[in-house]
């Protein structure tokens, strides 16, 4: 697999989009921190990068890349190479390059300007979100053979997780305002990786507000060490499950 991974990595690097992405991320986050007078405002800009831009770029780039790798896959499949290795190599190659881009672009300014615990949580969340959306891209690639359709599915999934899901939850809040739905909401938030990451970061950025009202529930759930482990394992599931399904389908795919 390492051998395949090498070729995938070289190919992605040659692609230049990842480099452009790194530069763009760096540009945004450096300017966010240096233009704003206090670092908490810069953090908010970076938060939006983490929650919107990173998933979008990850899912789009990966989808397009996987479709464009069809020839590569076909070429390799007729050689003594395990199918799952090809898929894993592609996944790891894409994940690694996107995470590297994120860590260089956003992670470094975060470590410099934000306090280290907040910075670390944000770096970890962003990195996990990158990989999660690579996994989601793999799933949408394998679901449909058509490139245009696949990209469409990817964008729809991003739209759903980044925007629509919150709208649905907000709607639920209004509908069931008279019921104690805090626990349901905690459960619901696990259904969207972006929300899960947002809440983890929120518990750092707006800890004072999160401590009040329903905060107790959230803080108890997400804030303590067990909750943190739980949240991160949930995020890991968001990587494993879509990728596992795509891998299972890929093994049976006719090329």
């Amino acid at each position, binding site marked *: 697999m390492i051998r395949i991974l090498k*070729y995938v990595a070289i*190919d992605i690097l040659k692609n230049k989009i990842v480099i452009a992405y790194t530069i763009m991320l760096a540009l945004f986050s450096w300017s966010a921190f240096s233009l704003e007078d206090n670092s908490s405002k810069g953090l908010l800009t970076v938060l939006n990068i983490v929650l919107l831009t990173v998933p979008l770029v990850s899912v789009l780039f990966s989808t397009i890349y996987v479709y464009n790798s069809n020839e590569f896959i076909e070429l390799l499949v007729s050689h003594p190479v395990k199918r799952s290795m090809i898929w894993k190599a592609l996944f790891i190659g894409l994940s690694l390059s996107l995470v590297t881009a994120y860590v260089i672009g956003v992670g470094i300014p975060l470590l410099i300007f934000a306090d280290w615990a907040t910075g670390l949580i944000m770096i970890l969340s962003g990195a996990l979100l990158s990989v999660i959306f690579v996994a989601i891209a793999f799933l949408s690639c394998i679901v449909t053979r058509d490139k245009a359709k696949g990209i469409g599915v990817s964008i729809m999934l991003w739209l759903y997780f980044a925007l629509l899901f919150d709208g649905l939850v907000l709607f639920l809040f209004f509908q069931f305002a008279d019921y104690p739905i805090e626990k349901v909401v905690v459960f619901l938030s696990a259904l969207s990786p972006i929300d899960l990451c947002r809440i983890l970061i929120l518990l750092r950025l707006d800890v004072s507000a999160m401590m009040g009202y329903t905060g107790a529930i959230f803080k108890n759930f997400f804030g303590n060490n067990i909750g943190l482990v739980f949240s991160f394992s949930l995020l890991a599931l968001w990587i494993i499950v879509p990728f596992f399904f795509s891998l299972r389908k890929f093994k049976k795919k006719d090329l």
Partner: protein
Amino acid sequence: MIEIKNITKQFGKLTALNGLSLTLNKGECIALIGPNGCGKTTLIKSILGMVLPDKGDIFFEGKNIKNDNEYRRHIGYMPQIGRYPENMTIGQVIDMIKGIRHAHEVLDNSLYEQFEIGNMLDKKMRTLSGGTTQKVSATLAFLFQPKVLILDEPTAGLDPIASEVLKTKILEAREKGCLVLITSHLLSELEDIVSQVIFMQEGNLVLHKDTEDLKVATGQDTIARSIVHLLKEGKL
């Protein structure tokens, strides 16, 4: 060498292979023919593991190829339309395949030299003409001295000289005891190289005979004529 038992493959409603059984022996050079969409390419891809049959098994040297990939070390495959990563150069593709196969075999560079691939190593795959792509595919198929050669329309798009070079190479391989499986529409092209003919129609095996037997049975002097004869008589 390759034993195909009862394989069935459906794409949606279309039955590409319908309970097909075949035995392909060492040292044979087999022409796989049939009308468009009769399941030739599906059969080849099934042997290569690119298409997974719904039913049935394929054995390579007695071993089931399901969940195996090592057997492909012994197969050289030349696809009908070679599709390669567009941004890679010829040199990179060849290097990559060498790297991935991690080959221990002595490499057979004769096609590489005869097609003068060495002069084009820096060309990107996307800039290549169909013929050149075929040359690369052929080179790769023969490079590792495989025991089995699967050639899907090998001469299509090749210029006459290259075509001749490839034919010689195929004959050479057959002499060495390789199993060669060729699909082609141009039966005349295969005339002097094939030893067996397989005719397929709508996913079924219709005919599997030695060329000599076929000619004798039909009383014709070429394979092409024999097939046409059979078709006319409605025996296929």
